[in-house]
């Protein structure tokens, strides 16, 4: 059994002993891997390979590049225009627009649908991501009919971060012990809400404009300069001292 976090380049051979095997569950290939029948599994990006024996899955962790939508990702999109029964939503710059049906919001009918103007922000889930079709979004859970926090984002600001940081931020606290900048700011008494989109966009709002900008700056600095926990504390301390 090879070590966790083994570095791979595209086309490297993955040691078969490293690939998890489960008597019943099918093997699940995560991002960055492709299967060439009958039995070779090759990485397509450079990164570190991780496995989960319980879920019988294997995937490559990497940071960077452009957001490529995949089903069930929660993303922050910007409305481009409305046509017919859909909004056209931008989820990554220069990428094709995704479509968000007017009726894919919680408890709406044709009469009560939300009126979103070009430029409005929505927090949505990717309902369909197929390479041959337009990406489809929804702001409502199809099984329960509840919004579960999805929907239009009002006020606040969006900050761009790397895909890797967006992924870290959307993890539970247990898995993500090294990005503590938001916790530090919260402990310092700032009031703010955070919405993390997997497409590398973070919405911050709910408090005063000054605090929103401060939180955004702390986050983007942490991302751009790859700060560890100690450096994050310094950034927060400096920004808070400037706030007074």
């Amino acid at each position, binding site marked *: 059994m090879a070590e966790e*976090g083994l*570095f791979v*380049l*595209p*086309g490297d051979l993955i040691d078969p002993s490293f690939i998890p095997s489960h008597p019943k569950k099918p093997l699940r290939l995560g991002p*960055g891997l*492709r299967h060439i029948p009958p039995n070779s599994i*090759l990485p*397509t*990006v*450079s*990164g*570190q390979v991780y496995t989960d024996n319980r879920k019988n899955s294997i995937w490559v*962790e*990497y*940071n*960077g*590049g*452009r957001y*490529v939508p995949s089903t069930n990702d929660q993303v922050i999109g910007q409305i481009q225009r409305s046509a017919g029964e859909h909004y056209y939503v931008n989820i990554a710059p*220069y*990428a*094709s627009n995704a479509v968000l049906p007017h009726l894919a919001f919680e408890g709406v009918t044709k009469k009560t649908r939300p009126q979103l103007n070009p430029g409005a922000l929505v927090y949505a889930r990717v309902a369909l991501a197929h*390479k*041959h079709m337009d990406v489809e979004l929804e702001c409502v859970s199809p099984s329960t009919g509840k919004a579960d926090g999805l929907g239009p984002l009002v006020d606040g600001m969006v900050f761009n971060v790397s895909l*890797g*940081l967006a992924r*870290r931020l959307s993890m539970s606290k247990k898995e*993500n012990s*090294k*990005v503590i900048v938001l916790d530090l700011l919260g402990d310092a008494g700032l009031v703010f809400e955070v919405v993390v989109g997997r497409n590398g966009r973070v919405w911050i709002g709910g408090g005063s404009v000054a605090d929103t900008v401060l939180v955004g700056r702390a986050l983007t600095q942490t991302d*751009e300069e*790859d700060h*560890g926990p100690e450096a994050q504390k310094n950034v927060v301390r400096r920004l808070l001292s400037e706030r007074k």
Partner: protein
Amino acid sequence: MTISAAPDVVLDHLSKADGSASYSYAGYAVTATVNGPIEAQRRDEQPFEAIVDVIVRPAAGVGGTRERHLESILCSTLRHLILLKNFPRQLFQIALQITSVPENDYVNSKLMQASSSQNLSVLPTLFQTAILALVSAAVPMKTTASATTIAIPKDYGSPLLNPTPRQVQTSSSIHVFAFTRQGDLLLSQSDGSFSQDEWDVAHDIAKDVCMEKKREEVDVMLDDDESQTQNMADLIRAEAQMKTDSDLHWK
């Protein structure tokens, strides 16, 4: 002028692009950016695969026929590496800016007024930079590859790896090869007159430089202290590993 300096690589230094790389070796320096997959223009898009758009910009002036030629060679080579079928109707844009070219001390030439053989000798640097930028942009690829130039001197001397402009001028033929890390030939461009045997020799030298060594062979080579020439595949691996380690330090 002998090339003793190790190749210089910077990855992901341009924040607005999806991926970027700067690479300099043997007197040539190139900066590359990669954007993609992005929306292709309606009239360009292909229904079943992505298109690759390579743009080469010379060190001085605007590009001409020479750059279009390099673009077409690079484009058809890179198409074999990128998993185009995964991104129908999309576009990968690779922009390559040549930032410096080696000077020929014997000829007082204007920048980039090169003969066709010198045109070829910039190709490996362009290719190598493009690959590094693609790795940095996390573009799904089948494998990585590297390229190198070999010149066969007129006096039947031993073939020269990464020749200087002067050596190119005084050689009977020059050859550019690109190999995947696994040692498959991707690109072969030759200029000048040469025999099949000379081509074979050049091919074998280039393959040795571009192909990744097996772990045991590397150890043996280090013992012999013969690893004077830089192995291009090892270079890509080392740089990509460094980038990944710093990217995933939050893990």
